[in-house]
């Protein structure tokens, strides 16, 4: 269906081709997953299928890409619109009209389909994607998962033979991601659509893939093979594969179900007395009486376990109140007739890492923004290092609390890394060179004259983090830090944040990434519709939730393990 013949793409002004030696064929009716670290040219490869590369982006394409027999060299994107449907990373930049029904019809109108055909297909697509109840809704009022489904639906209505998706689930919460993936699977199975998709969150998608195209490193030619085969050699892999590699299972399991079937021996081995376990392990205080198995997971941090306290409902910890970095008391926030937060009481102690989880729109970002003073509380109080953040002058506040926003680029204004660092030193009234030293430490090998825009997603996040850390705030907040990061960048981030926590920084991260929460957080706070619905040690909160449990937990249940690192430590 899609045939790449010795394709290479060189962008204007670049000395090296972004992708080269691409030579494979995607058969009809298969779901092919594009896997590789960030910066290997996955988006470029996807762009060549719809013809946007090079017709829209510029650059030189050598070789030949044919889609359903049409050569993309002679066909512009608009002339491929009836065979290829493309959904980019941000669904919002994809919408042309303003209601769901019109958006579904837009592509068909451009192709000039007959009105009766359009009407029928819109109805079919509304049913297929479960959007019937939303048909008249303005798109701006939909949640992230709904928008992603509308975006997919809008390219489905012209009945393309090929669907190209760039990170369709990265911005979604686990439940919404499953919704979208279920739809894709249905398309492949029932309609025979060919799907080519790139995604970093492999733990979500690998089980749906028929084949995997691995792009191991920049410039290396991609390889096509079965998922298990490719995962055995891939530099990026989900936790289930990591566990499989650790236990030397062959063939590698790709789903939690497969892994559970093989995990009997591993579970027995792990159930042995804790004497062989890592020495630093300390039991997490046990709460509630719902679990049978003893808690075997520990916060995976070299820092001594901190006392945590739950002030919601029943404060039961008997010890003296520890000093808090920040606290909120019956905090409520209303914005534009929406109750974003409702009666949130929370305290954050030094050295503690908290993961803030919940659906898209549950109030995670609002809570972070309130802690940093961007949003004043409607009722209730919020204190960050003893002062109300919304009434504190920014130059003072920056030394008390720092937030890395969802789009780290918002924090960066300057043309070069050096100028950015100098500005950060001035803003924080820190000694000259403080920020640059942090950048060197966190991101070795970054040149002074690099433009922040030319950095990769992970590097940009780290630069923003360095800028925020220049003022040494005791409280550090991160909003969706792993969006668009590959596993290597994520591992570096985890190490970095653990060190910061060990130095006594309190860290709060809002995230959909259950694996990240499992690796990093001592405590998880679950939000739903602006209310705190669970607040406790990571092991306890995520183990009991089917959608927030990490893969390792699911595989080794009823034993309570959170990460591959813990298992590895226990086995050695």
């Amino acid at each position, binding site marked *: 269906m899609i045939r790449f013949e010795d394709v290479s793409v060189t962008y204007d002004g670049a000395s090296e081709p972004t992708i080269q030696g691409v030579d494979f064929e995607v058969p009809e009716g298969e779901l092919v997953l594009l896997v590789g670290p960030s910066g290997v040219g996955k988006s470029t490869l996807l762009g060549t299928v719809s*013809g*946007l590369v090079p017709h*829209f982006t510029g650059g030189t394409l050598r070789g030949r890409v044919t889609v359903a027999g049409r050569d993309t060299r002679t066909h*512009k*994107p*608009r*002339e*491929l*619109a*009836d065979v*290829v449907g*493309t959904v*980019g990373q*941000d669904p919002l*930049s*994809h919408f*042309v*009209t*303003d*209601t769901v*029904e*019109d958006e579904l*019809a837009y*592509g*068909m*109108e*451009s*192709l*000039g389909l*007959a*009105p009766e055909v*359009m*009407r029928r297909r*819109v109805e079919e697509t509304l049913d297929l994607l479960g959007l019937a109840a939303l*048909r*008249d*809704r*303005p798109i*701006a009022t939909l949640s992230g998962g709904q928008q992603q489904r509308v975006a997919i639906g*809008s*390219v489905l209505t*012209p009945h393309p033979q090929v669907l190209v998706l760039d990170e369709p689930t990265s911005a979604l919460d686990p439940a919404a991601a499953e919704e979208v993936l279920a739809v894709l699977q249905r398309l492949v199975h029932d309609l025979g659509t060919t799907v080519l998709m790139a995604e970093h969150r492999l733990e979500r998608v690998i089980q749906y893939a028929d084949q995997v195209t691995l792009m191991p490193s920049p410039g290396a030619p991609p390889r096509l093979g079965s998922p298990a085969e490719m995962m055995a050699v891939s530099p990026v892999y989900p936790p289930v594969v990591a566990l499989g590699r650790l236990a030397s299972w062959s063939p590698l399991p790709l789903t939690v179900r497969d892994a559970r079937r093989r995990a009997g021996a591993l579970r027995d081995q792990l159930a042995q007395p804790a004497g062989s376990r890592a020495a630093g392990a300390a039991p997490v205080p046990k709460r509630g009486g719902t679990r049978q198995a003893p808690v075997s997971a520990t916060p995976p941090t070299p820092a001594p376990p901190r006392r945590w306290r739950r002030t919601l409902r029943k404060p039961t910890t008997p010890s003296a109140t520890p000093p808090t970095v920040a606290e909120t008391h019956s905090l409520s926030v209303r914005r534009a007739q929406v109750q974003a937060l409702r009666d949130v009481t929370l305290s954050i102690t030094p050295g503690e890492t908290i993961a803030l989880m919940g659906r898209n729109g549950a109030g995670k970002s609002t809570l972070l923004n309130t802690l940093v*003073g*961007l949003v004043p509380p409607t009722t209730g109080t919020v204190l960050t290092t003893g002062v109300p953040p919304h009434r504190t*002058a*920014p*130059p003072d*506040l*920056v*030394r008390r609390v*720092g*937030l890395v*926003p969802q789009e780290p680029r*918002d*924090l960066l*204004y300057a043309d070069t890394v050096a100028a950015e660092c100098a500005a*950060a030193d001035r*803003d924080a009234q820190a000694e000259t060179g403080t920020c640059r030293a942090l950048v060197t430490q966190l991101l070795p090998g970054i040149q002074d004259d690099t433009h922040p825009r030319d950095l990769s997603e992970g590097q940009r996040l780290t630069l923003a983090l360095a*800028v*925020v850390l220049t003022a040494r705030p005791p409280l550090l907040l991160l909003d969706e830090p792993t969006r668009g990061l590959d596993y290597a960048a994520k591992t570096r981030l985890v190490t970095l944040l653990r060190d910061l926590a060990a130095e006594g920084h309190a860290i709060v991260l809002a995230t959909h990434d259950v694996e990240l929460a499992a690796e990093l957080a001592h405590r998880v706070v679950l939000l739903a519709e602006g209310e705190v619905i669970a607040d406790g040690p990571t092991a306890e909160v995520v183990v009991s939730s089917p959608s927030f449990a990490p893969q390792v937990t699911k595989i080794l249940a009823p034993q309570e393990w959170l990460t591959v690192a813990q298992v590895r430590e226990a086995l050695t």
Partner: protein
Amino acid sequence: MASRGRPALHPGAWWLWALGLGTAATRTTNPLLLALLVATSAYVVATCRQRAPWSRSYSAFLKLALAVLVIRLFFAVALGSPIPGTHVIVTLPEVPLPHWAQGIRLGGRVTAESLVFALYDGLKLATLLICVGAANALANPSRLLKSLPGALYEAGVAIVVALTFAPNLIADVQRLRAARRLRGRPDRGVRGLLQVGLPVLEGALERSVALAAAMDARGYGRTAEVPPAVRRTTAALTLGGLLGVCAGTYGLLTAAGGTYGLPLLLAGLAAALAGLRLGGRRSLRTRYRPDRWDARAWLVAGSGGAVAALLTLASTSDPEALHPGVVPLVAPALPLWPAAAVLIGLLPSFVAPKESS
């Protein structure tokens, strides 16, 4: 949401209705009639509008109308008014102006007559604005786009996309000013706004490029093959037609060209329309569920037209009642049959599809 079982009314009908009320407003200065017009539009908006982002524009127009009224009154107080009046309310200190500024007055006597005159005048303009606001709130601007001829559609989409640029830009400015605060810089003041300027423009440009890519990939701008003869005829008709319209307008406006002006204008118009129609052949587009001009649309548009026609008639037959005097001051009376005519404007709230709960 309105159920599509009873499809939405044609947006053109709403615009005609609103323009009819607006025309009626320009025919009178009677505050009672004007208030009745505002109440009519408000009632129809309240009963017929749908829960969508564009329907919130009515309150924005209300505020704008109020601002216009206040500014009009302020000018009447500060700059004086040519209306001769005897009821002095207050005497402001008058600023002496040099002789070349004769005829302009700053401060001085403020009379009740001049205030009432300014109020009537301002109210007229405010009512007109509110009627336009009603049309905005009731008709989705992008649905109006669907009624454009095929040849103009693509240009129309570009305009609508450009219009969404401004709200996005404002959202970007807010986000980046918040980010400045995170960097520990003051987030208020002109300097703060200037420093986020470049990143905001960069972001807006990037989003526009992404949207253009998405539209291209979805088939925007696909054209059908048309024979060269048709293409040339289209160009000739459009160009010739526009030239004809220009020459005809010139002829109508000059004293000498009274004879050839009108025929030339009409011929030019016809040629231009034919060119547009022929140009539509190049476009492959079809319309998904186009709004039909049905009986309800006739009723809604007709009710607006009737209000305009009846008030125009009333203003010629009974100018006293529609333009209550200010010198001497009299209390305005409500003329009965023009008031009844205004109430015809309520018809849409009975015939138009309502929001189903």
